[in-house]
């Protein structure tokens, strides 16, 4: 019944200093060290969570009232963010209340109960697997859920249900760093700690825009007291480039040539750390011969950076050694020769000895909150704990650690994401199960993937929201609880494992992914395999056993409680090390301080190959290069979550903006604010032109968050990492 508000006459005083409207905004001491908080959101307890958006892994202090979260503030005691957060973190709770949360399972567009949904799921999957074999069904995991859940998914699908193929959306963000590190260091081991941002004398950011994409990491850069040189390599004049002391606006995808050119100059100008190279690396002599061809004139011509500036760049690295750190993210990872580019960065760090020391390293900044967890525990490319499916000893070790019979562990790794899609297109994969990812929006050459998804016999989407582009195509949607509605651990970019608690009730009958996997195991009839996997913490213990004697050994962590008490723990922490563990002095640790790597000969490898041109080049018909990337700090990927916050809506442009250089605009007769068509070979869209010199002539930029942008992108993949190349597509712009 609607309540009719009683008309209240105003007070008969001349000025009302207080009253109900004033009371709405009253703040009072919040206790728990929070300072003043809004009275209507006064907490009776607090707890700490790890933010579930990006890989920075900020600590958030959750304000609880009767056990449920009412508000949050960044955790001042967490060693990552030191009391700050970006808007996504601040708004992490509000996006849980969106009206389009999935509340019930949805089968062919109709809400059904869990029993029906689970029976249908198992019947369909079993039918596909029985009829077409174990390669006919695949799962696609994510970097957005807790790793205990990822591990359950990977184990359930492969060991329980008998699938061979599974990959994750981390293929879109981190696959390159994985491939590069594995080959160069012998293990997927980002060596750094965030303290290195503060300890460097030279910071080189390649294809990274931390000001917008990782604002809290940028905070650490600004805390650097050494007045560092900040070098940005990016075709665009990003916010980070504006804040840098040197910006090299190279031609799109000329990064590999630039990096080899820098290596050439560093060798020429005597910047090689000979002792380190001799003791700790292999392949340097071949590398010297190889980069001899990258003389400055050639590099200047191919990158668009003058010889003089190239020399200055190289000199800055030489003079900053041994406190030079190299940081890269999607500008490198999402390239057609991404792994070699990442390795070219690693080579620079190795040859100058900028590794294993404070303020150094070849450092990949991760994307998603749990991309690093997925790298160790998703059971997709790697067997649990960074193991190899092909290695019989590894299979036996994991079987022993997990209690899964060894014969249930496949002896071959999965196909990569794009290969699974190709197989689906060819008809060998008939069913795909997507968990917490939205490829109908985010996958490259979107029309193509949507065409393929529509061919599937069975498409399942497990997500918080029933409104994602992918969920709308699904035969079955399983409603998932989101971050804050379940517990488990994330691993951030600096290898820090952090625990995040359950502080909210999920809407309707949405269930934590963990519960969903448990239920599926039961309905499938394989719950006996997962007898010990009864809670996230129990799975955490299983996974610890899997990491024993691996570079990522975490057997020394004493459960979730230790993670919470010590502000997260960076891997590795073996049982032996845990005896020496001190919260205060072990807050920030880096790898390779002893100059020993994880390769069989304990030496890092120089890996290189001749650059090749980007697959889709400019033509008369499509004369502009389209670069895609992050729009604002308030936008996250396909915006299934960030799109739900009214405050964050204030922080992003109201419509899709195309960054266009004024010189190109003049040629095209386009004025600022005009609506233009952006056309590639694959599709076209309409955007509002923003004339700006942040993009060079001949280049345009679109943020990836608009669901149409990936209709334009050209699908090509790095041959080593199979990561899609989002940063180089040919387009034209018309009025």
């Amino acid at each position, binding site marked *: 019944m609607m309540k009719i508000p009683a008309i209240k006459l*105003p007070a008969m005083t*001349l*000025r*009302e200093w*207080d009253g109900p409207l*004033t009371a709405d*905004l009253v*703040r009072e001491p919040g206790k*728990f*060290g*929070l*300072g*003043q908080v809004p009275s*209507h*959101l006064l907490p*009776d307890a607090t707890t700490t969570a790890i933010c579930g958006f990006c890989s920075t892994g900020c600590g958030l202090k959750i304000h609880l009232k009767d*056990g*449920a979260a009412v*508000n949050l503030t960044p955790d*001042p*005691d967490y060693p990552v963010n030191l009391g*700050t957060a*970006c808007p996504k973190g*601040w*708004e992490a709770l509000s996006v849980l209340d969106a009206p389009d949360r999935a509340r019930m399972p949805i089968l062919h567009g109709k809400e059904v109960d*869990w029993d029906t949904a*689970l029976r249908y799921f198992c019947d369909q999957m079993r039918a596909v697997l029985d009829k077409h074999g174990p390669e006919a069904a695949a799962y696609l995991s994510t970097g957005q859920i807790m790793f205990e859940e990822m591990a359950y998914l990977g184990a359930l699908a492969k060991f329980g249900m008998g699938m061979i193929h599974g990959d994750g959306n981390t293929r879109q963000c981190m696959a390159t760093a994985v491939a590069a590190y594995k080959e160069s260091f012998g293990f997927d081991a980002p060596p750094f700690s965030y303290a290195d941002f503060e300890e460097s004398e030279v910071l080189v950011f390649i294809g990274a825009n931390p*000001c*917008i994409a990782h*604002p809290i990491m940028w905070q650490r850069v*600004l805390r650097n007291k050494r007045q560092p040189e900040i070098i940005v390599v990016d075709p665009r004049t990003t*916010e980070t480039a504006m*804040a840098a002391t040197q910006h090299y606006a190279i031609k799109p995808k000329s990064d590999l040539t630039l990096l080899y050119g820098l290596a050439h100059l560093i060798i020429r100008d005597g910047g090689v750390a000979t002792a380190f190279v001799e003791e700790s690396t292999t392949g340097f002599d071949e590398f010297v011969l190889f980069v001899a061809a990258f003389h400055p004139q050639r590099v200047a011509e191919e990158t668009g950076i003058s010889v003089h500036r190239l020399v200055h760049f190289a000199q800055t690295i030489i003079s900053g050694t041994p406190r030079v750190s190299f940081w890269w993210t999607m500008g490198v990872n999402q390239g057609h020769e991404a792994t070699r580019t990442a390795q070219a960065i690693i080579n620079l760090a190795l040859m100058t000895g900028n590794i294993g020391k404070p303020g150094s390293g070849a450092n990949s900044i991760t994307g998603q909150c749990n991309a690093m967890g997925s790298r160790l525990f998703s059971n997709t490319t790697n067997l649990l704990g960074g193991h190899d499916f092909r290695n019989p000893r590894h299979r036996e070790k994991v079987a022993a650690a997990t209690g899964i019979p060894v014969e249930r562990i496949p002896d071959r790794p999965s196909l990569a994401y794009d290969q699974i899609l190709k197989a689906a297109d060819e008809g060998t994969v008939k069913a795909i199960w997507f968990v917490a990812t939205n490829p109908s929006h985010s996958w490259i050459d979107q029309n193509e993937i949507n065409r393929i998804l529509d061919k599937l016999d069975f498409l399942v989407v497990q997500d918080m929201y029933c409104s994602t582009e992918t969920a709308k195509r699904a035969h079955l949607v399983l409603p998932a*609880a989101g971050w804050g509605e379940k517990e488990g651990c994330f691993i951030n970019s600096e290898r820090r494992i952090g625990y995040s608690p359950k*502080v909210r*009730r*999920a809407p309707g009958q*949405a*269930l934590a992914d963990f*519960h969903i996997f448990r*239920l599926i195991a039961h*309905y499938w009839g394989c*719950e006996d395999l997962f*007898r*010990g996997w*009864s*809670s996230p*913490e129990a799975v955490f213990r299983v996974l610890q056993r899997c990491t024993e004697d691996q570079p990522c050994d975490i057997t020394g962590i004493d459960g979730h*409680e230790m993670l*919470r008490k010590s502000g997260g723990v960076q891997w590795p922490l073996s049982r032996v090390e845990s005896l020496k563990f001190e919260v205060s002095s072990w807050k920030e640790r880096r790898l390779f301080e002893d100059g020993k790597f994880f390769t069989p000969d304990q030496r890092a490898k120089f890996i290189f190959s001749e650059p090749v041109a980007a697959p889709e080049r400019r033509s008369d018909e499509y004369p502009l290069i389209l670069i895609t990337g992050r729009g604002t*700090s308030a936008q996250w990927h396909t915006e299934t979550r960030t799109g739900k916050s*009214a*405050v964050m809506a*204030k*922080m992003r*442009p109201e419509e899709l903006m195309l960054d266009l250089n*004024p010189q190109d605009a003049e040629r095209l007769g386009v004025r600022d*604010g005009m609506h233009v068509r952006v056309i590639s070979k694959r599709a076209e869209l309409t955007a509002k032109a*923003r004339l*700006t010199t942040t993009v060079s002539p001949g280049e345009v930029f679109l943020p990836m968050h608009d669901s149409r942008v990936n209709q334009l992108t050209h699908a090509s993949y790095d041959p080593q990492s199979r990561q899609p190349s989002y940063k180089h597509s040919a387009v034209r712009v018309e009025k």
Partner: protein
Amino acid sequence: MIYDLEDPITGSGSAVGGIISQRSKIIDEALREQQTLRTPVALFSDEYDARSVRERFTHLIPLSKPVPGEQYAFEVNLDACTGCKACVAACHSLNGLDDGESWRDMGLLVGTRKQPYLQTVTTACHHCADPACAEGCPVLAYDKDAVTGIVRHLDDQCIGCSYCILKCPYEVPKFNLKRGIVRKCDMCQGRLAEGEAPACVQSCPNEAIKIKVVKLDAVPDRGSIIAGAFDSSYTRPTTTYVSSQPVPTAARPADAGRLDLDPGHHDPLAWMLVLTQMSAGGFIGCAIAMWMNWLTLTQAALTSAAALAVGLAGVALSTLHLGQPLKAWRAFLGWRKSWLSREIMAFSALPAGGQAIFATWWLGNMEWMKLAVTGTAAAAVVAVWCSVMVYVDTRRPFWSLKNVAVKFLGTLLLLGAALCTAVWSWAGLEVATGAMAFTLLCRWSLSVWEISKYRLALEDESCTWHKSARIMQKHLGVQIEMRALLLIATGLLIPVLIAAGANAHWMLSLSLLLLFGSQLMERLHFFTASAGTKMPGN
């Protein structure tokens, strides 16, 4: 503990019924567990942390309170602001604001082709030394704190007239539709009083926002606080933007080129202005005719009754735009400074004038009635002049004294004459013809003036209201064409039809209606194309 580590899901039963009941049991268990939250006494709640907010931000707020002649002010270090917008989100969260409400905004300055530049600009209330919001408020709902200089809004005093939104050149006060009042930044004065930093200061990862004590004498009264901001001479904003590199002269707000209609709900005001101006004109017409002895007592009563009815309708409609109309009785409080307060008081003379006119008519005293009508007309003209000043006082370029005065007084003459013409025509008075001629003269002169000024403003980029003209061209083209058709109808077609023998009573009434419609459209544009100034946006 919620998960029972010792009790995993039990093995599957053999009977079908057993399976079903067991399945529903484990689903129920999962759903129940999902809805269970740990209580605060459980393992995972912290009771206390070592470093309180008060200790963490002492270096970002002043150590002592301002002394007389000083006040608190925001200082923004542009070099440290990288556009993460945490301050916007934190203001919302730490102050418990409504959905989408935040008192901080983030904008962007951009350079030119020759001088590339990119700078994000965070902006909140500037807690001006001479706050225009406070000056304009008719009910004194703003208080500039004598010690801190913080410009505080008294939410329970506010009548939701939104005049402060028009007055503030930085777009700071925001209307809260749910509550029917304006709300704004109070520099988290309660936090500062306790030695805590404001929400935005606390939230900035790079410590770009600080609170400083500034000397009031030193608050600039010229220039602008940052590229694209309004001239500081108007309100003397106290925020300072500091940077190691000066902002390039060519830098401009990223949204400088945007031509958006003002989204405010000003329709009741447009109706009020046109109706009250028609009313004032009607009273003037009536008074002149009475002094010229053209009207009988009854005819004068009819004319002034028509003017009064229109005027009262206008005043009544104006209350529709108030969020808290019941509190409007305090509108006299701001009369010393607020033109809106004065306007409201002047228009409240209308009912009194009406009573006087009615009384003199009742008594049948023509001389006294002349004085009553003249007095009412004078009060109405004063009120219309206050209306003019209400808008001129906002310093919006489109609302220059000349623009507003010609529009408002022109409308007064035009619609006043048209009203008299219609009434007198129905009363069968000869003088209606003269009034009609005067209406025509007003119509054509006002329209010619308007059109020529609009054209000029559109062509001349240096014209102060060039932007408003472009907004009209972009968004209001159809309406402008409709007004041209109305001009033809009222200025040419109807007079010709009357000359050709059409029914003058009806034709003149129709003409009045169409003229009113045309002026109403003009007045709606007056608001929607007013192009208020603001801090740099996106």
